[in-house]
């Protein structure tokens, strides 16, 4: 546990070692604003909730999480520090979790910085703050799961651009899987069970459930499993091709 925190702390410091972290935070907050007010028509709807704010989060993460995750392993490979890190008395699992945790905390911070919108909606009306809190939790879970995907993709290559693209593609599959477009197309050719399975694999479906205000165990289990699965894949990737 101590090692996980040491690694997470180092990674987190590394994020803030360059201006990129601040740029990222600014872009994230700005984009959530753009989505909420212009695309989600927050003011025009006349409803005191944050649904227009939250519904685009998975789409936002699709681009922004890979930007956070791409350097996690690719940079270690490129600079050779992976050799230093992996010959210290740490296990691969500790490093994988530590790195992921740093990214997750960073994304959590980005999410916290969107608090003005919560205040705004409370000033403008009388929203259900329970739903909003649940949505924040859900959004944070989506970020964590996507980050695990991104970290695993970063472990595959020493090139950060490739890591970014791979992560975006895989995350895209997990977002799109639940969209009407995919499910309708699948319904035409596949049996119901399979279509349902595809829908259940989608982060979007589970996030929408949470964002409606029902923090259901099955939805939380989904995100936890997704995260654990990709972290496990990350450990395997590093174990198998540490030195490549």
């Amino acid at each position: 546990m101590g090692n996980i925190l040491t690694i997470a702390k180092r990674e987190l410091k590394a994020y803030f070692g360059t201006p990129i972290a601040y740029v990222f935070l600014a872009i994230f907050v700005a984009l959530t604003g753009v989505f909420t007010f212009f695309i989600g028509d927050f003011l025009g709807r006349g409803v005191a909730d944050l649904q227009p704010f939250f519904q685009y989060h998975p789409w936002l993460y699709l681009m922004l999480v890979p930007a956070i995750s791409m350097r996690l392993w690719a940079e270690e490979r490129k600079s050779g520090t992976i050799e230093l890190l992996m010959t210290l008395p740490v296990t691969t699992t500790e490093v994988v979790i530590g790195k992921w945790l740093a990214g997750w905390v960073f994304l959590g911070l980005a999410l916290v910085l969107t608090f003005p919108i919560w205040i705004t909606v409370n000033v403008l009306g009388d929203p259900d703050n329970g739903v909003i809190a649940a949505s924040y939790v859900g959004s944070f879970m989506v970020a964590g799961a996507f980050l695990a995907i991104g970290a695993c993709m970063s472990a595959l290559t020493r090139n950060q651009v490739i890591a970014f693209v791979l992560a975006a593609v895989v995350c895209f599959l997990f977002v799109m899987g639940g969209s009407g477009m995919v499910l309708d197309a699948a319904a035409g050719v596949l049996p119901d069970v399979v279509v349902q399975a595809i829908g259940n694999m989608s982060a979007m479906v589970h996030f929408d459930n949470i964002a409606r205000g029902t923090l259901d165990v099955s939805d939380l289990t989904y995100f936890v499993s997704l995260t654990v699965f990709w972290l496990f894949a990350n450990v395997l990737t590093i174990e198998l091709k540490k030195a490549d």
Partner: protein
Amino acid sequence: MTEMLVLDNLTKRFGPFVAVDGISLEVKPGEVLGFLGPNGAGKSTTMKMAAGFLIPDAGIARICGHDVATDARAAKQHLGYLPEGAPGYSEMTALGMLRFAASIRGLSGAAARTAIDSAIERADLATVANQTIETLSKGFKRRVGLAQAILHDPDVLILDEPTDGLDPNQKHQVRNLIRDMAAQKAIIISTHILEEVDAVCSRAVIIDRGRIVADGTARELKRRAENHNAVVMRVAAGDLDKAKKALAALKGTGRVETVSRGKTGARLRVYPVTTKSIASDVAAALKAKRIHVQELNVEEGRLEDVFRDITSSEAELAEVANG
């Protein structure tokens, strides 16, 4: 247990290419083993496997009795490792990196401070401790890597080219550092600077094409040189032929060659048949013939020649074997 580092039949293939082909060696405390070989001979690959970074296709590496593959954490606790090229986290300061390593090594509070201060002092990093690693020169980067490796006073040190990129003063300093630590530790350093072997190593292992081709002290290796114990002397130009004749007649001497010939004097080299010293015999023989010797030197043999001889002949043999 006397051997702190044991490599047993380590083998690594990259596709069809055998990078390391069954290397076995043991390093005892107090030993500084110089790991030599031409580029691509498998030095770094062997060290990566010894440090537990690269998984060998066959064979075992043990550090203080712990298998680096199956008992990695215990093995790594006894190990200080400087990877090839001394990589470092570019955005961290030298001090920050040492703090990170100390924390991972389980050092905290006063123990960590003492260890870090001592490492900074021994690697002479005080002037750059608060500079980020990306701004450091190659020499300082290497010393940060070295400080990180010796931070926890490990039993086994594996240093891949520790003096590469250092200026002569820094090299001298790092060698002193290694010598100072040598008494209780088992140390392996890889290098392609042969003078390093004379300067710090108690033993040298030469590898070529993934195999050990020579293993011994620097003195033992030099004995393999063609001119080991050869005698070079300078005589008056007029005495040259007389001297040659006298030396050829002498028992125990082999080839006699003229190294240089000038107006006033000529230089001769006489090779011994065995590795035994022939200097006194040579001197006596010349004296008996009343040949005045202006200078007389016994050649020790150069490691460089041995190195070139061993590694190139092995390569040629393999070439022949492969048809």
